[in-house]
């Protein structure tokens, strides 16, 4: 499975894609001159997860199930909301669907803002809301 690299050049990019994720190309936009901070978060599939009995256990991959097209819609709505609430210049949120191996990236969030503080706050707010609003579930594939 090839990792997918996006090209990000609009104010809001959001997508659920059926593969692991690579670094999106971040194209400088007209907003560029106001930009003071770009923060990128990669969520990576970790080898150890807690199983149903509360024990740490090794896995080989996570299998992400999505409820389509709601997953895409919620991701886009969330990105647009966070862009506006935190006065960002740009945001991109891309989530994997299906199987993603340990060590591979299943979620990428990039925020571009005038200052570091608003970029970091927006990032936290996005990830917290994602876990509540996005109809995306992960199933561990144990080693």
């Amino acid at each position, binding site marked *: 499975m090839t990792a997918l690299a996006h090209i990000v050049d609009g104010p809001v990019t959001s997508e659920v894609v059926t593969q692991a994720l690579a670094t999106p190309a971040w194209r400088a936009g007209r907003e560029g001159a106001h930009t003071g901070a770009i923060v990128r978060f990669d969520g990576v599939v970790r080898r150890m997860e807690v199983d149903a009995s509360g024990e740490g256990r090794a896995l080989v991959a996570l299998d992400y199930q999505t409820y389509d097209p709601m997953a895409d819609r919620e991701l886009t709505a969330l990105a647009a909301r966070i862009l506006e609430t935190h006065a960002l210049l740009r945001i991109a949120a891309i*989530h994997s669907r299906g199987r993603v191996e340990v060590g591979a990236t299943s979620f990428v969030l990039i925020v571009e803002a005038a200052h570091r503080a608003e970029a970091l706050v927006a990032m936290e707010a996005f990830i917290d809301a994602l876990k509540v609003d996005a109809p995306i579930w992960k199933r561990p594939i144990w080693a």
Partner: protein
Amino acid sequence: MTVQVLVFGAIAAAANAHSVSVAVPSSPTVADVLAALAAEHPALRFALPSARLAINSAFAASTAAVGPGDELALIALVGGG
């Protein structure tokens, strides 16, 4: 009337199915569907406190009306990322 509700993740595992059906009064609301899920599917009760119902891929308020052709999905607070 009977409605089908799509389920996912841990709820699908508990139901051992990707959808469940429940009997609801005519002209049901979201609250009616959630109440019927709790009454008819005890195995799903663990998830209901954090779950919301989506109608046609959008989260719906508890007073929202459920129509005959609507796609219903139970979304629990166990998200991605």
